[in-house]
């Protein structure tokens, strides 16, 4: 694969085992071009979330990971986190401030930006999720769908180049799901979406990665992969 083809995310030979010896990832290779959207599917325990946690350096395994041309090492972790925005499965874990504004502002404030720029970034992020009027609302009182979108905004405020989302549509009602899909479609960032929602993958992601037991089982066009009944059955997806 040419260098430029993997400019967004370049993972080579990633191995990871937990401290107690349990192996979570085996020789994972992934090459992502800028602007690509990839659905990551697989049964529970396949290592989908674990893989995402490596992208922004929360977990460190063996092998090479580069994001936007930058190697993800312990030393560079601070810079990497500005490039990779991770949206976690449970928005309650991500919304820990009293108001929406405070939550979205956390990232920019931590990065040391001036007050004016922080406010600009927050306004911009809220615009992107179509929730401009929510700045002073209390995060705790929002519905699940609203919380999920605010969680995305908290990450957008840091202007990342790559977005990784863990089960974004879990628990949403059909309308919430629709709003989420519209939102994600409109975003320009490279996206890696780990999900059980195969319909979402079909609608949003031209390419799919199938993980099982820490290994990459299949990596190719969504249409082809998700039409292969035998493959899906063999790996707990049907």
């Amino acid at each position, binding site marked *: 694969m040419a260098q430029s083809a993997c400019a967004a995310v370049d993972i080579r030979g990633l191995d990871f085992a*937990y401290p107690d010896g*349990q192996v979570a990832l085996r020789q994972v290779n992934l090459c992502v071009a800028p602007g690509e959207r990839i659905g990551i599917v697989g049964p529970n325990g396949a290592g989908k979330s674990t893989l995402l946690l490596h992208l922004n350096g929360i977990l460190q395994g063996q092998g090479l990971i580069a994001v936007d041309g930058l190697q993800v090492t312990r030393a560079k972790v601070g810079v990497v986190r500005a490039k990779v925005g991770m949206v976690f499965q449970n928005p309650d874990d991500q919304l820990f401030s*009293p108001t929406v504004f405070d939550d979205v502002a956390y990232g920019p404030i931590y990065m040391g930006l001036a007050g004016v720029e922080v406010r600009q970034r927050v306004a911009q992020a809220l615009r992107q999720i179509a929730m401009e009027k929510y700045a002073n609302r209390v995060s705790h009182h929002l519905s699940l769908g609203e919380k999920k979108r605010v969680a995305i905004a908290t990450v957008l405020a840091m202007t990342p180049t790559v977005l990784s989302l863990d089960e974004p549509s879990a628990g949403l009602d059909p309308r919430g799901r629709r709003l989420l899909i519209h939102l994600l479609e409109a975003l320009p960032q490279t996206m890696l979406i780990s999900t059980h929602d195969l319909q979402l993958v079909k609608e949003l992601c031209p390419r799919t990665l199938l993980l099982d037991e820490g290994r990459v089982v299949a990596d190719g066009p969504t249409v082809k992969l998700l039409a292969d009944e035998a493959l899906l059955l063999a790996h707990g997806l049907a």
Partner: protein
Amino acid sequence: MSHYTELLDGPYAHAARAIGDPECSLLPGGTPMHVPDGFLSTWVALLMWVVAIVAVAYALRRVSRELDERRVPLFGVLAAAIFAGQMLNFSVTGGTSGHLLGAAIACILVGPWAAVLAITCVVGTQALLFQDGGLLALGANIVNMALIGVSVSHAVYTSLRRLAGDKRWGTLVASFAAGWASIVVASLACALELAVSGTSPANVAVPAMGGIHMLIGIGEGLITVGAVALLYAARPDLMGADKSKAVENKGILVGGLVLAIVLAVLSPLASSHPDGLEWVAEQRGFLDFARESPYRLIPDYAFPGVSNEAIATIAAGIVGLLIVFGIAMAVAASRRRRGSAQSL
């Protein structure tokens, strides 16, 4: 099969691993106030056990009566939340980080007596399962953190809040003060226990423990403010001034204030012996000092750094403290009996 090994495979694997690893830096424990075994003399430890048992038994009865008795075990869940909360840290400078004890937040959220129960569960579990604090010393740790920590924070929070007229800023200031005071006064009590046990001379222990915890207390105060800010925004109904509760908890309010004042006064007294170390060097002939008899209630030789008079004062202070607390509780009990017809 052990509950824990099941957890290693389940969705809570990360938490299970963190809790199980004593070398994991996320291990809770809050401040350096958990006294291990071997540092308190036997009679101090046993006396503290008596106080702890009486206080916790009373707290159980109070909470059972104030709420539906069925709800009482649910404070175990709050205890789990406190435990989890103690894992949250923030970096101060370099490698140091600030942690939380949580007595103040617990007290503000669910009231003093329930907080006593919750913190007792936490401290007890830390001692029993993580050896964070000794078994014989557990009574003292419960007294310091659950009893003194909670009552002082309740006293400070309620008084300051009433002074400020229940406005939001007043609540936040009161929260900070409550968090700070709970840590500092508890640490003074801890230092005095160590001094009376002869493990640490008072004129070193008190300034050292007190000083360190005055700094740590700032972290606790700030975290408490942050927590109250969130609670205020998310559940203002839980933060509202509850007039009826205030009357019923007058006992612990008075007790808490008294404790704070007494400890704050006693400690400098205990450590005020001038030039303690040089005095020791004068060698007043304590050659038979070596053996420590467990059967004498208060040893009649002087502890290093503290004179006989100061020991007497401290001992008297502690006894007086207990008497006052007992009176406060009795007053509260009689008030409640009188007021029970109108309350709730």
